[in-house]
């Protein structure tokens, strides 16, 4: 079933930043509940840019605890700070999602063992120190490296969420179809196949009518094998699109109340 990774608990947003500064869990809990009601399967947790590297460690653990006290959902621990990542994993209940590794060897060699140790799933971006690949083929080559390394560390492909990277359609238009083609090919890399994810909102950065672009791309991506997305769970039209695409792809058995049921999983 399609997994929504709710993006809202992020220190980039003012209310979450305030929650962190004041040590007041209210807003974090509210967003956990709200996103769960909207159909989120994972809650992305990001401390945001304000705190120092040292402070992030404690903040991440606090955010994860606050979110999981409010709802019975797993978290996607979203940070480039490895100490904060591990702090989040330590307090997490259930199977967490590490967000994220890339195909840089040094990163894979730290984060894959961490995923194995904490029995977490892991998001891995199809890019390396050279940047974002241009073509679908280059993305898939990196996806294969991610898959081979994950396998080497004993991580099952079903716990590996490969992100082929989505770029804004207004400035990197040629990447749109390449990412879609990469999604299609990633699902063919192994059996069982790796899972896939994208940071959906990237497709519409600084473009007008972002919701329309987001939901159109989501439907297109689900058609070629997208299993999950970091996205705005509060955008009802977007979640309706995910529910409908899931029905049309025969991933969920149809019923007249499918839109409502999609949010109740």
């Amino acid at each position, binding site marked *: 079933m399609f997994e929504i990774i709710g993006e809202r608990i992020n220190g980039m947003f003012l209310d979450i930043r305030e929650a962190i500064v004041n040590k007041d869990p209210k807003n974090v809990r509210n967003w956990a509940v709200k996103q769960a009601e909207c159909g989120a399967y994972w809650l992305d947790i990001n401390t945001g840019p304000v705190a120092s590297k040292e402070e992030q460690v404690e903040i991440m653990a606090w955010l994860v605890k606050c979110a999981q006290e409010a709802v019975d959902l797993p978290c996607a621990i979203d940070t480039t700070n490895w100490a904060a990542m591990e702090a989040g994993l330590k307090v997490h209940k259930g199977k967490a999602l590490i967000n994220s590794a890339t195909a840089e060897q040094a990163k894979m060699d730290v984060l894959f063992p961490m995923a194995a140790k904490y029995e977490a799933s892991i998001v891995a971006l199809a890019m390396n120190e050279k940047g974002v690949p241009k073509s679908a083929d280059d993305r898939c080559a990196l996806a294969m490296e991610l898959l081979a390394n994950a396998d080497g560390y004993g991580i099952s492909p079903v716990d590996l969420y490969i992100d082929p990277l989505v770029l804004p359609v207004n400035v990197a238009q040629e990447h749109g179809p390449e990412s879609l083609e990469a999604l299609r090919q990633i699902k063919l890399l192994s059996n069982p196949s790796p899972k896939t994810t994208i940071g959906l909102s990237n497709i519409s950065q600084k473009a007008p009518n972002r919701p329309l672009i987001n939901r159109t791309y989501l439907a297109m991506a689900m058609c070629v094998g997208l299993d999950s997305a970091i996205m705005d769970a509060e955008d009802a039209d977007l979640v309706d699109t995910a529910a409908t695409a899931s029905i049309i792809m025969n991933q969920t058995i149809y*019923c007249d109340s499918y839109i409502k049921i999609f949010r109740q999983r």
Partner: protein
Amino acid sequence: MAVTIAKERWTSKVAEMVIGPNDLKLGGESTLSFLHFEGAMPNRPVTSLEVFDMEPEDWPDMLKEAYAGVMNDPVAWAKKVVEYGADAVTLRLMSAHPDWKNASADEVAKTAKAVADAINVPLIVLGCGVEEKDGEILPVVAEALAGKKVLIGCVTANNYKSITAACNGYGHNIIASSPLDINLCKQLNILINEMGLPLDRVGFDPSVAGLGYGIEYAYSIMERARVGALTGDKTLATPVVCFVGENTWKAKESIAPDVVEWGPLHDRAILWEVTTAITFANAGGTVFIMRHPESLKRFNAFIDEAYKSNAY
């Protein structure tokens, strides 16, 4: 090279229902039927034989012979069914049918109460099959049977409201019926659940057909529902009720005595019912409502074997 046993890692399971005075559990499967090596089938499939609340004139002789002497007395008939080894008694309130006796709700409720009081196994109560009439009688029957944890059916999209409300109020379970359509089935489960009846108190009647008369449609629907249940679709994770006897004892293979190329009637009639039941047991059926005691015996023998663990 060593062989690795491929085991599916299912993420969810069928709801577990509790019925009757002996708190009989059914459902709860976390694997495909009888694949004990990759999941649990915590409860044995439940078998039942039908009792009519009036003598069914259109039954074939083989069935009438099996219940000779008790067909005018639902209580005695129910006791006979228990004697024959059924896990549960299924009482069909045919006398309420407008074309039969058109009995009132109070009359059939009285019979249902008498039968329930006389047995110590779970009771399954079925209406006469006319949606409107069942919508009238079954709430009254539910009230008369308060606290007996019976399984009441069948409700359809047209009459589920009054019956669901009564089942919820009097502590019963419900059978939701849809015409070989998994989408309608799922939707009906949702509507029933929205009235406050938990999904572990709902059974799913896919309106099965017997061997040779569309069994494959029912088979694939049941299989699809089970896979849905095991992969996390809670609205489909309800135990499946199979009306085996009702659908096999109208097949001409079960009643035509003089068709030479089909062999002896007795054997084929029993096998028609048993084969249908075994087929549905493999597809994911949970409750098997049959008619002939000999079929029940043979089906139970199959379950005994299939229910043995094949874990590696």
